[in-house]
């Protein structure tokens, strides 16, 4: 899950997925972070990109942290959180490390693409080579840096790979504007479906 808050301004301390998202988001835009946790990413976006930020989070304790960071946040789940918004209410919707935890990712993505002009999705890659090795040789549910849970305590409901997501977007005619792959806290591009721990995509509806 999300790491503890860093009070430092140093870019080196910024999580690599946050760095990617920071880079992609235009200054002064409006951003809705679904499952914003303690608001680290949103606070960074406010500070560095001057975005109009809104978070949605189900955990009450996390909301206290968000408010302490000066963020606006709704205590809600993704279903309610999105369905109440009009079309194109935000420039960006962020689903970072939450898509694999929602019960109906298909619905959540469709709603996100309706409410946002663009959607940023980040998720752990289930086809990472460490996961492959553990399944193949040990015959066990994989535990990797980006999938750190045992089978019995994981909040993840869906396990998808980078290839799964790309195929999904092709089938649904969703346009992939940008993609980034992260391994060992660094961006990488070679055989991402094997070597990336995390995939991040900027997507939008083709017609939009």
């Amino acid at each position, binding site marked *: 899950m999300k790491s503890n808050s860093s*009070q430092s301004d140093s870019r080196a301390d910024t999580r690599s997925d946050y760095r990617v998202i920071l880079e992609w988001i235009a200054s002064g835009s409006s951003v809705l972070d*679904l*499952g914003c946790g303690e608001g680290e990413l949103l*606070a960074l976006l*406010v*500070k560095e990109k*001057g975005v*109009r930020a*809104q978070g949605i*989070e*189900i*955990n*009450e*304790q996390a*909301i*206290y*942290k968000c*408010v*302490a*960071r*000066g*963020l*606006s*946040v*709704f*205590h*809600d*789940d*993704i*279903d*309610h959180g999105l369905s*109440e*918004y*009009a079309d194109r*209410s935000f420039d960006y919707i962020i689903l970072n490390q*939450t898509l694999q*935890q*929602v*019960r*109906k990712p298909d619905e*959540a993505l469709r709603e996100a693409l309706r409410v946002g002009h663009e959607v940023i999705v980040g998720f752990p890659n289930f086809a990472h080579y460490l996961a492959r090795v553990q399944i193949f040789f040990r015959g066990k549910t994989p535990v990797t840096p980006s999938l750190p849970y045992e089978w019995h*305590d994981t*909040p993840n*409901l869906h396990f998808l790979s980078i290839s799964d997501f790309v195929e999904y977007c092709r089938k649904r005619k969703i346009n992939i504007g940008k993609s980034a792959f992260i391994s060992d806290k660094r961006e990488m591009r070679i055989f991402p479906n094997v070597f990336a721990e995390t995939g991040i995509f900027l997507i939008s509806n083709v017609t939009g």
Partner: protein
Amino acid sequence: MSLLSLLPRRSERPTYLSPVRSEPEPSSGSGVAGSVGIVKTHSFHFAEPPDELTLECGEKLGPITVAYETYGTLNDEKSNAILIVHALSGDAHAAGFHEGNEKPGWWDDMIGPGKGFDTDKYFVISSNVLGGCRGTTGPSSINPKTGKRYGLDFPIISISDMVEVQKHLTDHLKIDRLLSVAGGSMGGMQALEWLTRYPDRLRSALVLASTAKHSPQQIAFSEVGRQAIMADPHWKDGHYYGGPPPAKGLAVARMVGHITYMSDISMAEKFGKRFGKEKPHKFSADSEVEDYLHARGNNFVKRFDANSYLYITRAIDSFDLSRGKDLYQVFKGINAKVLVLAFKSDWLYPAPQSREIVRACKLAGVDTTYCEIDSTYGHDAFLLEVDEETHLIKHFLQRVFYQQGTGGAYEVKEYEI
């Protein structure tokens, strides 16, 4: 369906909040934060004939006296003023102590140096509502036309009339723009009314355990209270002044009220005991809960006017912020920030009513924060969940205060209260 609810939830309280308080009664406000000390209630007079205030019902009322208190100091820019608006039975005395009285103001836990409404930083104003009986003009005031108390000659008042009177008070105090208007329950309705009626006169609104419109269930409980008062033979169509007041009726109204302010759990925790002792007669109070309700009812009649109870409950019952439109339309174009808080066990002003407000703010693009606080205290929680409220309100106000004029980001560097 809750999707993110599948995330692991921690049931324990966060470390930055102090342990759960076991005493579900407003405390004396003791703790690390300080008290505003000895305070006095002031009076402001306006609407002298022929400049009477025209009420929502069309009738005119004047002169009007407003009882109010202030805590803290207004800064030179007059940008740090917060108006606290009270609930059904509240009054102007929100914080500190009156000379010779040990009981602090009704929201002393939240108002004072270092508290949620920090009087070291902010200038806090609290006034008694129109129709009240604690210094502001109401049905027990003298009608200048007759030289007698108004009684039922007092015109029907509304939440917006209350707000109109408060606006005159802020004019009198020469405050063009309030940093915030904050209140719970009926206070929340006034905060909402301020927000939509005078959106340019406030920078934020805090709406706690409230609603944009009274539901049939809420009206039903009010009506039982009103009927109890009017069934009391001492009520005499509201003209009981000079004789015995309808104390039994008002006490029953208050008892019904108190039932709705608690939750099943808070009642079970507080009133476990049955007495089974010798009693004056068969149906004398036989349990803690009965004793409590009797005590609450009997205390209430000493400080509250039965006619005020009728007028104010009527004002709450007829409140409808939307005025027949879609609720989001009344929020359109509002730049003020909004904090909405609801409490899980509050069944009188249940969380879905707060969500309705939040949904409308969302659709209207109003900058809003919503938190549903996990509490077992029922509706009373807005007076009792001090630690959670302090944390949320303190940070929210800081952000509103420091973002004034700049529109820039404000980052709080610490979590501690």
